[in-house]
C-alpha cells in the first residue's frame, strides 16, 4: 500500500501550514503602548512603609468589603504571608530581609498594568483599561471563567468561590469611582507616612528617580513597574532587592497582549488557507478516483469491442461456410439431375 506522490505532497503542504502557527508568534507589531497620557498611578515607597495596615482598613471601608475576623489594628496578621482575596483588595506583608535590622513591609494590590493581561484574556471584555489608569471590572457581563486569574502575572484577581449566584472576580479598582470624582484612592489617603503617593504616572516616575538620586544608599536603583510586563500604573521603589520581598523579577518587559498576538495573527492564516488547501486535496483525491473509474470503463469497453468483432467474424465465416455448403449441395444436386437426364437420353 504505497502513498501516491500527489497525496504525499498534499500532506507536506498541510504540515507546512501547521508549523507556521507557532512561528508567527515572533512576528508581532512594532508599536508599543506607553499608557494613556496623564493617567494616574500610585508610587509605593517600600522603604517608608511601617506596616500599620491603615491602607487595608481604608480599602475595606471605601469598597464596602466584609469586616474581617481580626481587626485591622491587629498586627499579628502580618505573621503569615497573605495574598489578595475576594474580601481584601489589598494586603500588607512583612518580610524579614537578611542584613536588615528592621522588617520590610510591602503593600500588595492590583498593579494596573498599562496593557493588562486580565483585559487581554477576558472573552467578554469585562476588564477595561480606563484612561485614568485604573483597570476596572464589570460584574454584569462576567461569565466566571477565571481566565483572568490564570493570566495575571502578579496573582491579584480573586474569586467569590462561595457564592452560588453571580459570583464575582474581585480586585483593586484604584478606587476608580473616587478618582473620577477627584478624590484620592482610599489607601493613599489613609497612609500616615506617604509611603503611597498618588499622581500622574510620569510625575511619579520623576519623584521616584529624584528619591533614588538623593538617597542612593537608601534605595535599590530600580523602579519596579516602570517596565515590568510592559509597565504598570502602580510603581514601587525599595531599599532591598524586590525578589527579597516577594516580587517577581523574572516577568520581563513584554506586555501581556504581545504574548498572544503572534498566535492570534495566525488564526486568519489558518482560516484562510485551510479551506483552499483542503478543497485542493479533496479535488486531487477525487480526480484520482474519477480517473481510475474512467480507466476501468475504457478497459471494459476495449475488451467488449474485441469480443464483438471476433463474434461477427465467426458468424460471417459460419454464414459463408453455410452458404458454400448450400451452394455445393445445390451444385451437386444439379449435377446429379443432369447426369440422370443424360442417362435417360442414352
Amino acid at each position, binding site marked *: 500500500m504505497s502513498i501516491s506522490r500527489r497525496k504525499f505532497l498534499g500532506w507536506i503542504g498541510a504540515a507546512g501550514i501547521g508549523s507556521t502557527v507557532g512561528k508567527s508568534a515572533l512576528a508581532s507589531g512594532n508599536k508599543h503602548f506607553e499608557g494613556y497620557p496623564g493617567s494616574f498611578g500610585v508610587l509605593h515607597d517600600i522603604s517608608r512603609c511601617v506596616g500599620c495596615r491603615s491602607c487595608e482598613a481604608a480599602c475595606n471601608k471605601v469598597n464596602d468589603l466584609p469586616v474581617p475576623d481580626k481587626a485591622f489594628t491587629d498586627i499579628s496578621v502580618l505573621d503569615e504571608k497573605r495574598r489578595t482575596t475576594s474580601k481584601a483588595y489589598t494586603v500588607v506583608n512583612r518580610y524579614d530581609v537578611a542584613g536588615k535590622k528592621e522588617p520590610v513591609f510591602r503593600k500588595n494590590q492590583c498593579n494596573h498594568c498599562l496593557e493588562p493581561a486580565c483585559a487581554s484574556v477576558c472573552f467578554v471584555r469585562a476588564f477595561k483599561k480606563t484612561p485614568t489608569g485604573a483597570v476596572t471590572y464589570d460584574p454584569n457581563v462576567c461569565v466566571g471563567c477565571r481566565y483572568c486569574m490564570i493570566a495575571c502575572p502578579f496573582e491579584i484577581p480573586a474569586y467569590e468561590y*462561595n457564592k452560588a449566584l453571580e459570583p464575582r472576580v474581585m480586585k483593586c479598582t484604584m478606587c476608580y469611582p473616587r478618582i473620577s470624582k477627584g478624590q484620592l484612592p482610599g489607601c493613599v489617603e489613609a497612609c500616615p507616612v506617604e509611603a503611597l503617593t498618588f499622581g500622574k504616572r510620569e510625575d511619579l516616575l520623576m519623584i521616584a528617580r529624584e528619591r533614588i538620586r538623593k538617597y542612593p544608599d537608601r534605595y535599590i536603583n530600580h523602579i519596579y513597574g516602570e517596565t515590568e510586563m510592559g509597565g504598570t500604573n502602580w510603581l514601587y521603589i525599595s531599599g532591598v532587592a524586590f525578589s527579597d520581598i516577594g516580587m517577581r523579577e523574572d516577568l520581563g518587559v513584554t506586555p501581556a497582549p504581545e504574548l498572544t498576538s503572534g498566535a492570534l495573527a495566525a488564526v486568519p492564516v489558518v482560516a484562510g488557507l485551510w479551506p483552499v488547501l483542503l478543497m485542493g486535496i479533496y479535488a486531487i483525491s477525487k480526480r484520482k478516483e474519477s480517473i481510475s473509474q474512467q480507466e476501468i470503463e475504457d478497459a471494459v469497453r476495449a475488451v467488449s469491442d474485441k469480443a464483438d468483432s471476433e463474434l461477427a467474424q465467426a458468424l460471417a465465416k459460419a454464414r459463408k461456410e453455410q452458404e458454400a455448403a448450400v451452394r455445393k449441395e445445390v451444385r451437386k444436386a444439379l449435377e446429379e439431375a443432369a447426369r440422370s437426364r443424360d442417362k435417360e437420353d442414352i
Partner: protein
Amino acid sequence: MSDKAANDAKTWFTPFNVISGTIIIIGIVITILRFTRGLGAVTNLSDNNPWGIWIGFDLLVGVALAAGGYVTSAAVYIFGMKKYHSAVRPAVLTGFLGYALVVVALNYDVGIPWRLPYPFIYQGTTSFLFEVAACVALYLTVLFLEFMPAPLEWLGLKKVRELAVKLTMVLTVLGVIISTLHQSSLGAIFLIAPSKLHPLWYSPYLPTFFFISSIIAGLSMVIFESTLSHHYFADKMDEVHIKENEGVTLGFGKAASLVLAGYFMIKIIGIAGGNNWNLLGTSYGLWFLVELLGFVALPSFLYAVGVRNKDLTLIKWTAVWTVLGVVINRLNVSLIAFNWQLPSSQRYFPSWMEIAISVFVVTVGIVVFRFIVTRMPVFYEHPDYKDKH
C-alpha cells in the same frame, strides 16, 4: 431488538447499569450542591489555582480525545481513503458526544453558566478563550449535522437524510478548519502565562503542540474506541464494519506512528528554542522526559512495530498508552507544571467531588453512546441506504 428489550426488563440490574446508576446518582447530588452552594463548596479551587480538573481534564482532555471525529472524516472524505469509511460514524458520534460533554462540564466550572453565550455578544476577540468558545459552539453544530444521517435513517426521514448527506463535504472541511483552530487555541490559552507555566512546557509553539497531539489523540482514540466497541457491540456491527476494522487499526496505527515521530521532533525543537536543556536534570525535567520518551517516543516505536508485524493486539494496547500520554500532557500543562513556582502548600489537588463530577460526565457519555449505538445505524449500514454514500 424488540425481544432484547423484553429481556432487559428481567435483567435490569446488570453490572453496567448498577455502576453507572450509582455514579449518576452521586453526580446529581453533587450537581445540586454545586449550584446551590457555589464552587467553593465542592471544589478545591483557590485564588492561586483558579482552574482545576474540570478545565484540565474535562475541557482540555475532553476536546483532545474527541478529535477522532475530524481526523477520521478528514481522512475519508478529504484524503479519499474510502476503505476507512465504516469508522466515520462511530468517530463522529464519539466526537459529538465528547464536545457535548465538554460543554456540560463547562457549565459546572464557570461561575455563571447561564452567561455562557455572552462571549458572542461582548466579543473579547483578543482572548484565545473566545476562539475556543466560538469554535466549540460551531463545531458542536457541525458534528451534530455530520451525525444527522444516522438518526434520520433511524427515523426513516429519507428526504431530509439526502440533504444531510449532501452537506457532508462542506461540513468536513468546516470541521477540520474549526478543529485546527480550537485544538491549537487550547494550547494558546497558556501563552499568556510564561511566568506560571514551567519553561519546559511553556513554548511559543504550544498551539502547534496541542494541534498535532490532538491528531495523535484522535487516531489513537479511534483505535481504542473501536476495540472497546468490538467487544461490547459486536452484535450491532455489519460484515463490512468488522471486515474493515483490521484495516482501520493498521492504517491509523501507521499514521499515529508517523505523527508521533513528528511530534517528538517538534517537542525537541521546543526545548532547543527555549534553550532549556539544563532544566532536564531537575525533578520537573525528569517528569518531562517521562512524558516525552515514555508517552511520545515509545508509542511511536510500538505503533511502527505493530504495523510492521500486523500485530493488532500491540497496536491496540499502544493506542491505550498513547491516549494516556495525551491525558498526561494536558494535565501537565494545565495543572502539574502550572503554578510550579508556588510552594507546595499552595498547590492544587482536586477534591473527591471534583473527581466524582468528572467521572459522572464521562459515565453520562458512555450511557448515551450505548443508547445511540444500540438503536441507530452507527456500526452497520442501514439496509435501505446501502451503497449510498
